[in-house]
């Protein structure tokens, strides 16, 4: 129930402490508590009940007239940022945006899944008939192409339609309007309500994505000693099955992620998010030798690549330096970030 108190404290933070505002806070606290208990009695979980109580709260500015002259002294501080005043996101806009994200979540999921799934017939048939040659191979490629285009077309169409539905909120999505602490509290509380559903969807999707490696790798091992022309159809089918599993995972996860995505979009301009981004980009907390490696790594790798290739002439093998150094750099950056950010927090 702390969360309800915190939520009300945030909502009332703009209003000065007077008997009238204290009264209002107490009454609304009682209403939220009743709503919470009502949701519990109707069989909702704790998180869902909290979310329902918050969803039924409404707009804090509506009660301003009842606070008498208290609301005239409400502290609305416009933020001066590089000489221009940023507009805050209003509660009504935030609620509409959240509604829109919820409404369009299946457009996103089905759209992206169709695009990935659309590649399956083409790649599958291309592999299956890859070494057959002649008319059969061309027919296979043509059929795969003919199946792929409408699937991808519909997928892209769905994404474009969703984009149009969300076009009214480009200021929120683009981080142009400022996120207030009330909006942040509201979005965080709603996200908590949805988080268990999202986590379940993520777990199922990850299992599907792990499984997706199985068909192709399994078929590859199984058909190792087979003649090419016998193995290819099986490999083609397993490629298709891999893509089907990947797109299924996307279909499961993306729609369930709507509130999390909405919350990230809404809070990207909150003071906390900005501070965290600046901390991540600011590499002053790394020691000198780490910063030197970050700066010079790719130049050195390029020099090594060119030297090695020109000397040995083996351009066909020297390309391997790129994936290897990308992985090495990624690992180095991750480890350095973990070691040195925890050191900084200890300071």
């Amino acid at each position: 129930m702390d969360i309800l108190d915190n939520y009300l404290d945030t909502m009332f933070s703009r209003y000065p402490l007077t008997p009238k505002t204290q009264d209002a806070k107490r009454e609304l606290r009682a209403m939220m508590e009743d709503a919470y208990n009502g949701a519990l009695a109707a069989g909702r979980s704790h998180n869902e009940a909290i979310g329902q109580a918050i969803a039924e709260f409404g707009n804090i500015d509506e009660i301003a007239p009842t606070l008498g002259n208290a609301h005239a002294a409400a502290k609305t501080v416009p933020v001066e940022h590089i000489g221009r005043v940023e507009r805050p996101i209003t509660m009504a806009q935030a609620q509409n945006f959240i509604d829109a994200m919820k409404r369009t979540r299946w457009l996103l999921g089905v759209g992206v899944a169709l695009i990935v799934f659309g590649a399956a017939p083409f790649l599958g048939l291309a592999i299956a008939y890859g070494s057959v040659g002649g008319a059969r191979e061309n027919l296979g490629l043509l059929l795969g192409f003919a199946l792929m285009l409408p699937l991808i077309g519909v997928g892209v169409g769905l994404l474009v339609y969703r984009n149009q539905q969300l076009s009214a909120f480009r200021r929120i999505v683009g981080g142009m309007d400022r996120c207030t602490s009330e909006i942040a509290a509201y979005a965080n509380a709603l996200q908590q309500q949805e988080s268990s559903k999202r986590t379940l969807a993520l777990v199922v999707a990850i299992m599907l994505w792990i499984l997706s490696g199985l068909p192709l790798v399994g078929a590859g091992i199984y058909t190792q000693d087979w003649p090419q022309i016998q193995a290819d159809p099986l490999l083609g089918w397993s490629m298709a099955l891999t893509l089907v599993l990947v797109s299924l995972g996307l279909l499961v996860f993306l729609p369930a992620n709507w509130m999390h995505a909405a919350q990230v979009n809404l809070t990207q301009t909150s003071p906390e998010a900005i501070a965290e981004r600046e901390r991540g980009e600011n590499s002053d907390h790394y020691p000198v030798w780490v910063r030197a490696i970050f700066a010079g790594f790719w130049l050195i790798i390029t020099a090594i690549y060119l030297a090695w290739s020109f000397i040995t002439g083996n351009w066909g093998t020297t390309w391997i330096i790129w994936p290897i150094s990308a992985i090495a750099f990624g690992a180095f950056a991750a480890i350095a970030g973990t070691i040195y950010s925890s050191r900084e927090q200890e300071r």
Partner: protein
Amino acid sequence: MISADALRGYVDIMILSLLRREPSYAYDMAKEIAREAEGDYSIKQTTLYSALKRLEGTGHVESFPGQSQSGKPRTYYRLTEAGHELLASKCEEWEQTKTLVDRFAKGND
């Protein structure tokens, strides 16, 4: 779901008519409104609170301490004489509004 904008100004009729049946407290009234509306409308807590306070300020409603169904202390509200009169005049006004707007709306089927 009818938007809150469309119902601005009619929330008072809902509250006054509920309180005419019996005195009640905020959450109970919100539940009743949702039940009566059969899914077409649910009132926000801030809307209900500001309406109740406004009606209390104009003397149409008065508050007294009571207990919720679970025994917790809650503020109860009941209609005053003025409140009864206001409800009657608001209902008549609604009938007149309905008739007027229907003259324009009915021709557009």
